[in-house]
């Protein structure tokens, strides 16, 4: 492995430093380091260095939907977006509900080598919402699963949710809930409100999310467990989580870049690229999730990267699949919406995109301080870069980005995974 000297990068705290990477670790951080022979020098003037980003919510689609994404293409997309670890959601075919499947995904991640792939285990067998999957076996497997989720579906049965919350206490796990009351969202197509009334698409009411969030924080309080709320999308959910945290309930929450950026007005185009679950909400909801991310009520940004093949989006709205890609565009969107507006500083960005997701997922070698002796998982970001999103030019195998044609603010220039560059000069290595 080559050694790298990163020169003149701005740390999240604002200091400009040189960083020497050796043997997978950061070995020196100083105002000025002189390269020894054989060390590759990377000029990082004007770049911000962040701990490698960690996504708690990624759909890599493999096994089963390799037409949408593979562990390899999804890992490359993650690296290109500045990520060094992703949590691969369990709604694959077969479902990641056994030690065998999570180990398979974990190995595919190792073989690809672009990011650390941490499989998420299903809460229930087959995501059917009826019977607990073998959570302890998945936790004890080589994949060391700590995050459990039926994402794509809600653990709607309150008894099953209670059991899952209790059971993961024994393995230091967390239940990540996709909060969607199923009866209130049958055949739902988009956020229920002014726009759905107008365009005649069946509504997905905010209360269908909020009622589950409210129930789950109360269950988490009752049994003293850790709960993570996936993709918070409504102002009401934010209020409930704020209240729960105030009571000392152990709840964490995530928001996606698209729920920070876009509203249900996009549905007026009937372009299914904007069809996502939970749906894009009202402008008031968008304002609420931004404010909640700024004040810490929402702990992290997670992408919910959900690739779909072209044919699943090239159709009428009702026939289209839910979901949008996000790994390669998340950091520029957070930069534009949260940093340029002064709502977050770079230390906060490091927290919401690396430190906190690592802590929630119990990933020990990620989200670490940028100091000597720490693992060299790093992202170099150029905040001044401007680029226009071309779906065909992305690393993900799917083109369903909601920001096609949009000029983004900033770009990942380099990513280091355990000291090895996965991205250099803005290009994925290898």
């Amino acid at each position, binding site marked *: 492995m080559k050694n790298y000297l990163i020169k003149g990068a701005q740390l999240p705290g604002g200091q400009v430093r040189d960083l020497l990477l050796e043997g997978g670790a950061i070995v020196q951080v100083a105002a000025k380091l002189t390269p020894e022979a054989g060390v590759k020098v990377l000029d990082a003037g004007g770049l911000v260095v962040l701990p490698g980003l960690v996504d708690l919510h990624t759909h890599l689609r493999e096994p089963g939907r390799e037409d949408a994404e593979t562990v390899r293409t999804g890992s490359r997309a993650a690296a290109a977006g500045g990520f060094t670890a992703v949590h691969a959601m369990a709604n694959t075919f077969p479902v990641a509900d056994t030690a065998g499947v999570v180990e398979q995904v974990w190995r595919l991640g190792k073989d690809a080598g672009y990011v650390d792939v941490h499989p998420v285990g299903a809460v229930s067998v087959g995501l059917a919402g009826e019977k607990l999957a073998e959570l302890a076996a998945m936790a004890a497997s080589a994949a060391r699963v700590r995050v459990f989720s039926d994402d794509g579906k809600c653990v709607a049965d309150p008894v099953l949710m209670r059991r899952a919350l209790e059971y993961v206490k024994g393995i230091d796990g967390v239940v990540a809930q996709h909060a969607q009351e199923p009866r209130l969202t049958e055949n739902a197509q988009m956020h229920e409100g002014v726009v759905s009334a107008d365009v005649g698409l069946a509504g997905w*009411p905010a209360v269908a999310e909020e009622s589950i969030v409210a129930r789950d924080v109360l269950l988490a309080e009752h049994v003293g467990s850790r709960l993570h709320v996936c993709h918070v999308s409504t102002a009401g959910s934010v209020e409930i989580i704020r209240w729960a945290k105030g009571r000392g309930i152990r709840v964490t929450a995530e928001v996606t870049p698209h729920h920070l950026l876009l509203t249900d007005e996009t549905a007026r185009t009937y372009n299914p690229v904007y069809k996502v679950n939970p749906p894009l909400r009202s402008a008031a909801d968008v304002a609420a999730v931004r404010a909640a991310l700024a004040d810490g009520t929402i702990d992290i940004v997670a992408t919910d990267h959900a690739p779909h093949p072209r044919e699943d989006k090239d159709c009428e709205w009702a026939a289209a699949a839910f979901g949008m890609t996000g790994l390669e565009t998340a950091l520029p969107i957070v930069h534009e919406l949260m940093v340029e507006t002064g709502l977050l500083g770079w230390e906060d960005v490091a927290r919401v995109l690396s430190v906190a997701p690592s802590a929630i997922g119990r990933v020990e070698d990620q989200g670490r301080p940028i100091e000597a002796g720490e693992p060299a998982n790093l992202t170099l970001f150029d905040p001044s870069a401007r680029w226009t999103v071309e779906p065909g030019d992305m690393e993900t195998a799917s083109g369903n980005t909601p920001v096609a044609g949009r000029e983004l603010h900033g770009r990942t220039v380099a990513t280091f995974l355990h000291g090895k560059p996965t991205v250099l000069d803005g290009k994925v290595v290898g």
Partner: protein
Amino acid sequence: MKHLLSAKDLSREQAVLILDMAEQMAATQARQVKKLPTLRGLIVVNLFFEDSTRTRISFETAAKRLSADVINFSPKGSSVSKGESLKDTVLTLGAMHTDAIVVRHYASGAPYTIAHSGWTDASVINAGDGTHQHPTQSLLDAMTMRRHLMGPNPLGQGLDGVNVVIVGDVLHSRVARSGVDLFTTLGAKVTLVAPATLLPVGVETWNCDVSYNLDQALAEVKPDALMMLRVQKERMSAGGGGFFPSPQEYTREYGLDEPRLAALPKRTIVMHPGPMNRGLEITSGAADGLRSVIVEQVANGVAVRMAVLYLTMTGAEGGEA
């Protein structure tokens, strides 16, 4: 006017133009030889993903009276997961040099998607999409109202000062949505009446009044036109959404029966977009009574669709038919 996708897209001028042209078309229909050579050599496809014999026949008649060649195509499979994709169906029609596609689809927005997808150059006319819009229905309704309520010469006029009450399943009704848009564009005042379960969340932002009580609304509004919407019986079952407790209760609260009919002002016309559930939202006495213009609505449908086909397919903004 290249497409007709939503009544919301029509300006007052465009709507009046269509209605005036529909009157001209209707006049030609009184002649012995009803066929006009206007669209000779052009192809109209009736692309119906959802059964509606009455709407299809109306469009077919309209196109044939304008001498267009008409192809009726009803793709198999009524669920979104089955059958050929919308894209492939439309690409196939494009290969046949179709000039206009009249689309009926169970998915809201499907005609919009076809018109904006780049899959076809044809004019797209929305013949009803999901729970979104049915613009030619609201145009024929407006034509019918204008004839009855706007004096002996309706040409050039809107629906200024007309009070319209629309009763029934607004939530699932594309007729109500296009009606609110078009009638208000033309200067009418619209009141929607339904149980709250059958009104969409967000209706409070629409350009109309809303009431849960039919008797109260009729007494207050004294409507010039009363439009009863079809209520699908399956909507009351738990599986269908449980929107109201029983057909009997619906009829009691929201049906047009003889006492309500008798209490209406003399000038009030009774409308229904069809097909009717006699005995549920409207009694036979009301449907067949002197105030009923329901049969006229059907005849006006052909004239309005002739006007829409002519204006979209020739790109004309006006002129003689």
